[in-house]
């Protein structure tokens, strides 16, 4: 008897589109968080700026609440949202639906409200322009990955169909 792969193969159409988009967003987001967003140079000294660098600097500077806010909206919420968009269609496939999925979708919609990667991206771009008079800056691969992650997250969220997960028929508006 051939071993069977435990990969779900029958997703509903909207989820089919959302899942690869969310997975692409996840890969790009992890790369964006791990790679430098930009590098600053001053008198031969280099300094790489990661997504976490600012949060650590704020925390060490005594601005813990601000650091927590940036961490929540710039890293935690986007990561939680993308992970939910990746996992929900896989684990909540037909036959395994339960009341917990509704709560999870509710959490994902809540995370979407606080997830602001596109705003953070614009903030970094403005900061880099502002820095041009102070230090020499060079954009890093993390910035591109993070920007694309923001774009793919938006697309995945737009195509995400909560009705396909909960099994509740959607009513045409």
């Amino acid at each position, binding site marked *: 008897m051939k071993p069977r792969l435990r990969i779900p193969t029958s997703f509903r159409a909207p989820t089919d589109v959302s899942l690869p988009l969310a997975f692409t967003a996840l890969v790009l987001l992890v790369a964006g968080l791990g790679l430098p967003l930009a590098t600053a140079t*001053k008198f031969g000294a280099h300094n790489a700026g990661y997504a976490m660098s600012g949060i650590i600097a704020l925390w060490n500077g005594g601005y813990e609440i601000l650091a927590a806010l*940036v961490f929540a909206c710039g890293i935690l919420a986007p990561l939680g949202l993308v992970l939910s968009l990746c996992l929900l269609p896989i684990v909540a496939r037909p036959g395994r639906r339960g009341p917990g999925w509704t709560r999870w979708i509710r959490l994902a919609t809540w995370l979407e409200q606080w997830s602001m990667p596109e705003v953070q991206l*614009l903030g970094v771009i403005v900061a880099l322009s*502002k*820095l041009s008079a*102070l230090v020499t800056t060079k954009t890093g691969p993390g910035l591109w990955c993070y920007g694309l992650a923001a774009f793919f997250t938006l697309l995945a969220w737009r195509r995400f169909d*909560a009705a396909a997960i909960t099994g509740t028929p959607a*009513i045409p508006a």
Partner: protein
Amino acid sequence: MRPSIECPSCRQSFAPDKSGRCPHCGRRAGPRGSEGRRRALAFGLAAVFLLLPAYALPVLSIKQLGQAEADTILSGVVNLWRAGLWGLALVVFTASMVVPTFKLGVLAVVLAASRWPAVLPPDKLRRLHGVVALIGRWSMLDVFLVAFLCGIVRFGAVATVRAQPGAVAFGAVVILTMLATAAYHPPDDTEVASR
């Protein structure tokens, strides 16, 4: 057949039952009446009070070769403008100064219209609330900007950027206005019809 409404959270359409909760995401889709209005008013007022320190206090300080310079949100915009970065100056000005004040103004109109329906028709009320909810997050631009600058400009005595108390006040304004928007949902068509 009961008319369907759209969930403000997951955008799915459904026929509302007694609980008023969306069957897809579980969010309460209907209005929260006076409780929601009171909560939104409290968040909104707190944001108004914090708006003054947010704009008056410096949000970041730049220390370069022993010389320190503190920037408020407005002086940051002016510096960008003077540096010839007009587009970026406009973006920062819009996100940090226009959006929060506009949001609070619109929120006041929305709350007034929910109390006195003659002020604004329900469809316009919903549209205004939607606009406020949509643009709210862009005010976080300055907070992310300060965080990134603090993280990348760390050259000791040569050049260092540090956050200042104004950034905390501004971050609080953004969060409070977002909470105020989330606390109140304008009435849907079924609610308006049942009045």
